[in-house]
């Protein structure tokens, strides 16, 4: 079963705008990761935030984590057409070495 739930399921924006995707999960975690998947391809790791961190930045990406609410958000600033992809959150539940993925948010950035 899938632990994470991304919101929204689909998001369409114009180039240059910011995109925000949210993720909720159910159990205690060691860390939360975000991955990107271009259509028909494998997943690419974007960023990892540990359970004792609240915010993390990587280039145009900003991730927040609220363990009290069991939620995370991914912000992509100044979006580009090349950012068009599906974005998945994945949790690393405590006591487990596996990742549990959500259903993803499909982002379309229109030029």
């Amino acid at each position: 079963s899938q632990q994470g739930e991304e919101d929204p399921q689909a998001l369409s924006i114009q180039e240059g705008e910011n995109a925000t995707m949210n993720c909720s999960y159910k159990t205690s975690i060691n860390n939360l990761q975000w991955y990107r998947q271009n259509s028909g391809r494998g997943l690419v790791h974007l960023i990892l935030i540990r359970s004792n961190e609240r915010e993390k930045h990587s280039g145009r990406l900003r991730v927040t984590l609220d363990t009290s609410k069991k939620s995370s958000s991914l912000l992509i600033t100044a979006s580009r057409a090349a950012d068009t992809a599906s974005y998945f959150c994945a949790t690393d539940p405590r006591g487990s070495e596996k990742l549990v993925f959500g259903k993803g948010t499909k982002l379309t950035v229109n030029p």
Partner: protein
Amino acid sequence: EAEVAQSPRYKITEKSQAVAFWCDPISGHATLYWYRQILGQGPELLVQFQDESVVDDSQLPKDRFSAERLKGVDSTLKIQPAELGDSAMYLCASTNRTSGRAEQFFGPGTRLTVL
């Protein structure tokens, strides 16, 4: 940059036939994962290996699916017999947990279509 290799990239088969997928992880990665991803969903773990040993195969339909990693390097996932519901993307990933890093590196996947 090292990558996870998978083959074939695409496979079309008829139901009741046998299919096999191959994965070669990044060199030195002891942990290997096979995921199944149904269209519009996130990946779901089928089996996890640590070296040549199975760590977790709780979600692997063992009546028809099998996986092996005999020498602790490359791995094969087999389905016999294939069913219509097996149509999906099969993804392989690897990681080097001994380095303390948790991110997984994914291959390009094998798209299976069962007719």
